[in-house]
């Protein structure tokens, strides 16, 4: 028995494959999914999606979104999904610096900055 993993972004269906186990980057840490998991809808954070496939592990960087698990099908909705190899450390560092430059004088702006910084840090971690 195996899991089916479908990753959709607003542009296209990024990935549709079989896997033995899936490690989802949830908003508060990773969550492992094995075949036969109870139905779930969860919030994704920024981080690495790890697929244990027959051909070996596959890693993707996922940029927030949602995960839905039902009947051994894992649906991921995310704004961006990239194979980890496509990420560039230098570029990720630049994004982090840019995020750190954002203003934070009001609570709303501070919240926006915090998200941007968190996102950049996670991207950098995935890139490494």
């Amino acid at each position, binding site marked *: 028995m195996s899991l089916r993993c479908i990753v959709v*972004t607003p542009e296209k269906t990024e990935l549709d494959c079989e896997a033995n186990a899936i490690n989802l980057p949830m908003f508060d840490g990773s969550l492992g999914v094995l075949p036969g998991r109870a139905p779930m*809808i969860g919030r994704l954070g920024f981080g690495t999606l790890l697929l244990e496939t027959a051909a070996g592990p596959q890693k993707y960087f996922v940029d927030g979104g949602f995960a839905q698990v039902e009947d051994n099908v894992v649906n991921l909705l995310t*704004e961006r999904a990239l194979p980890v190899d496509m990420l560039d450390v230098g570029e990720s560092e630049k994004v982090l610096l840019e995020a750190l430059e954002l203003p934070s004088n009001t609570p709303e*702006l501070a919240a926006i900055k915090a998200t941007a910084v968190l996102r950049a840090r996670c991207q950098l971690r995935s890139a490494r």
Partner: protein
Amino acid sequence: MANARALDKRRKSIRNIRKITRTMELIATARYKKAMDRAHAATAYTDQLTKIVSQLAAAGLQVSHPLLEQRPETNHARMLVLTSNRGLCGGYNGSVLREVMPRIAELRENIPDVVVDCSGKRGIDGLAFRGVETDQQFRNFEDQPAFDEVDKIASHYLNLFITGKMDRLDIAYTKFISTSKQIAKVETLLPLASLDEGDDVGESGITEYEFLPSAESILEEIVPASFKARLFKCFLDAAVSEQVARMIAMKGATENAGDMIKQLSMTYNRARQGQITGEIMEIIGGVEALEG
């Protein structure tokens, strides 16, 4: 009778133009198909979003979110106009501008601060000609708008809305209904009217889901995502409509050129015939004069 040589020259130039318009039609057709495929691929995301929203609704969650709430007082409004960068697409840009102008006037009457943003060179020029100042100008959207670029605009708008610098966002674009029907439309995107709740709640609502961390938290996240998806959909629709409009305009131009060539050929043949007849008459006249 017109000069046969001048007619032939004109006919040749029309033939050249017909070649160009036919090529443009073919290019537009190819781009239209690509744009259409992209628009189609994007539906998977929105479908999933609606599914999750309907699951949330089935879980008995009250759908409320700052982005969904109507502001008691609208002081700052924004209008985003989506047009094309290139011309030669018939009434595509014209109909969007025609739809937008009365709307801007109406907004300006009721709301003190109305800012207009525009994507597409044609729209920017058209608005400037009509005396409307545009704040942000985007010229980077061609036939395949990338989500990353739309995302930047969407995040910017979300930030403006959340920080209270904008109370309302309207978007003017050409909605793609079918290959033979596209309408220019103005829609209010922020505050979001409603999340599209799927009709299939009954069928898929049987499963009980575990919500991580909670249904409220997911809702909080899904509303901005749904706004972004909707804005992206508008860009995709506009891109598809542009290609369709260009395809149809170029098809018309090619057909018109064919008709003109037919007309000109007829006149040309008549002129040539007239010329030949005239020459024969002259020769016969000369021969008769010699004989006589």
